[in-house]
């Protein structure tokens, strides 16, 4: 029922709030002619608007879900009380009821659905008016209260300040709670996974083949959940990537920050930023269709046997992907080194490159390290490129010419297609996710700690 009532409700709410704002402000202006006000009229207006908005929002947030639940139950009951206990058919039936009530139903509905739809339509209408009337009256009460509150001594400014603080707190709270919620849901599934597979097998096993038999008569798939091949694959590809992106990104940053003319900088920086904006799936097919064959041909020339999907190809393209991270973050920290330090070094008779080597880079080092860390955690979390260029084979190998696979690729592989939600295979995805999360979190925490230390250095 939310869909059709919302626009009306919210426009009413905004209109009422605007009215409250103007009325309270006008009243405050009137009062101020007789006596000095504690708060300027605009704050009385803002306070009154909040006093309409907040209660009306609260009513909507509480009443709509309650009403929706009740309507669903009642209309299903009218259709067929047995539906209420049948989780599978319940959802489908309710969808039919809604479609029918909205006139979108194709074909001939069954009498039960028709009965349900009638109840649904009736109750929805009722609820719409009910919520509307309730909200409106609460809003009006708020408005009247706020108008009465307009007195010379009323601290509308301070009240409004408190409301602003509350609103900011709510937003911050949502951000934090979402993060915590995600972490915990992954954590719980991980714990469930560990009830089926022992942590030692998971952490130290050298075999990864998450296919488990769904039916007892399927053979040969008992499932093995050792993550070492994935660790090796992830480490291998990320290492190749950072060995490519590290030097190139850093030297590019040094050039940009220290030598490039402002004109060159003005167009080269945005170009690099565009590289950061290329969707990874595009880089992925670039890796699979261009780089992987090149690597293979080149290997063949040297008489090496390169798998058609190789860690090297994926690593090279991943390196290209993270170059902008390394270069633009390093550029920032190098530019942030105060000019006075460069002048100090130049005035001692150092050349430009000596100054960079001995003063600028050491001063920027912690920031550069954290740029590298962030780039690595980006590489570790990347999926598309590896899926396309490095394959799915869980080989425990450190040979860059082999096909390998990574955490993210396996998570994606496991969760594509139909799933049995409590099989060890599906739960393994959560466990992988958790390990990955833990790893990138550690990297980020280290990076942040370094950045913080670095901030204190030359202030």
């Amino acid at each position, binding site marked *: 029922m939310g869909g059709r009532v919302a626009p009306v409700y919210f426009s009413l709410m905004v209109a009422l709030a605007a009215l409250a704002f103007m009325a309270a402000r006008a009243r405050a202006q009137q009062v101020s002619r007789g006596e000095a006000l504690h708060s300027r009229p605009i704050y009385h207006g803002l306070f009154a608007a909040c006093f309409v908005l907040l209660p009306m929002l609260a009513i909507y947030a509480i009443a709509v879900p309650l009403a929706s639940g009740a309507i669903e139950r009642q209309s299903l009951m009218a259709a067929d009380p047995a539906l209420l206990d049948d989780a599978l058919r319940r959802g489908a039936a309710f969808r039919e009821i809604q479609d029918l009530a909205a006139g979108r139903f194709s074909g001939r509905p069954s009498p039960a659905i028709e009965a349900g739809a009638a109840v649904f339509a009736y109750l929805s209408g009722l609820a719409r008016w009910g919520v509307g009337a309730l909200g409106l009256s609460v809003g009006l009460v708020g408005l009247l209260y706020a108008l009465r509150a307009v007195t010379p001594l009323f601290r509308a400014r301070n009240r409004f300040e408190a409301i602003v603080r509350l609103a900011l707190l709510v937003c911050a709270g949502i951000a934090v709670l979402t993060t915590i919620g995600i972490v915990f849901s992954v954590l719980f599934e991980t714990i469930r996974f560990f009830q089926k597979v022992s942590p030692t097998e998971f952490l130290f096993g050298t075999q990864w083949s998450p296919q488990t038999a769904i039916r007892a008569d399927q053979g040969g798939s008992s499932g093995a959940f050792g993550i070492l091949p994935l660790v090796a694959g992830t480490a291998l590809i990320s290492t190749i990537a950072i060995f490519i992106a590290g030097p190139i990104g850093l030297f590019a940053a040094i050039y940009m920050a220290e030598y490039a003319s402002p004109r060159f900088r003005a167009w080269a920086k945005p170009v690099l930023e565009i590289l950061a904006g290329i969707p990874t799936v595009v880089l992925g097919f670039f890796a699979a269709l261009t780089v992987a064959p090149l690597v293979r041909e080149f290997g063949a020339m040297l008489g090496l046997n390169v798998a058609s999907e190789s860690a090297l190809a994926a690593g090279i393209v991943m390196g290209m992907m993270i170059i902008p991270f390394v270069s633009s973050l390093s550029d920032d920290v190098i530019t942030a080194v105060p000019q006075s330090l460069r002048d100090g070094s130049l*005035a001692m008779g*150092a050349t430009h490159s000596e100054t960079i080597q001995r003063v600028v880079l050491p001063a920027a080092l912690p920031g550069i390290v954290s740029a590298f860390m962030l780039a690595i955690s980006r590489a570790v979390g990347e999926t598309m490129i590896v899926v396309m260029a490095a394959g799915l084979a869980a080989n425990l190998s450190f040979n860059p010419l082999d096909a390998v696979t990574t955490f993210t690729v396996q998570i994606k592989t496991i969760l594509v297609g139909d799933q049995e939600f409590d099989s060890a295979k599906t739960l393994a995805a959560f466990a992988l996710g958790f390990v990955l999360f833990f790893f990138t979190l550690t990297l980020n925490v280290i990076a942040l700690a370094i950045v913080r230390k670095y901030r204190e*250095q030359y202030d």
Partner: protein
Amino acid sequence: MSFASETAKALNAGDAQGAPKAASAKVAARGVNVHYGEKHALKDVFVDIPEKAVTAFIGPSGCGKSTFLRCINRMNDTISTCRVTGEITIDGKDIYDRMLDPVLLRARVGMVFQKPNPFPKSIYENVAYGPRLHGLARSKAELDEIVVRSLRRASLFEEVKDRLDDPGTGLSGGQQQRLCIARAIAVSPEVILMDEPCSALDPIATAKIEELIDELRENFTIVIVTHSMQQAARVSQRTAFFHLGSLVEEGATDQIFTNPKDRRTQDYITGRFG
């Protein structure tokens, strides 16, 4: 040592008579003009800076004191819009000669900046920076000796001798400025340029630095930019007054402060403008 103090005495004697002598000019500027892009910041400056003495540059803000100072060690080269013409010689040699390497020049002409700018390295490494750069010490012991001697001369050693490995940025403002002076003298430059070295310091730290400048005069040629008339009068033997990019008057400090020839100088030192 004795020679140095003889020179200093001779100079003082010269000052007392109010007869400026340019015979032992260490640095000489002849018709120096500086442009920042279109802006004509320094106009036709002629000045002699005597050896082993302190020369003060005074003048209202924006008159080109720092600009001229930076010409002497060619730090203006690092500003892309800056163009210097005319001739500046040190020991009779043109420092804007094509063949002269500005990097080597800056080892001979040290600079101390208005705001202390120690490197984010240890106290030891700050002072050792120049000697390492120019290979002045053949062994660790020699380097240690240079560092200790420089810190002593900058009268900082007693305060930091137990924490040479602590970061130089952790010192107080006055200590940092003395560290920068130690860093500058560690490469034994011939000339030290100081651009308002005391502007960020309290009176006690300022007094220390002034005392230090007075001692350094024995061995170095010093040029100091200052906004404090008292400071110029206290530490310098010669004073040059700049106004709107021109050098208005230059002479023995006593003469400039007691008997200025130019009306503008008089107005400035008596606080009537600037």
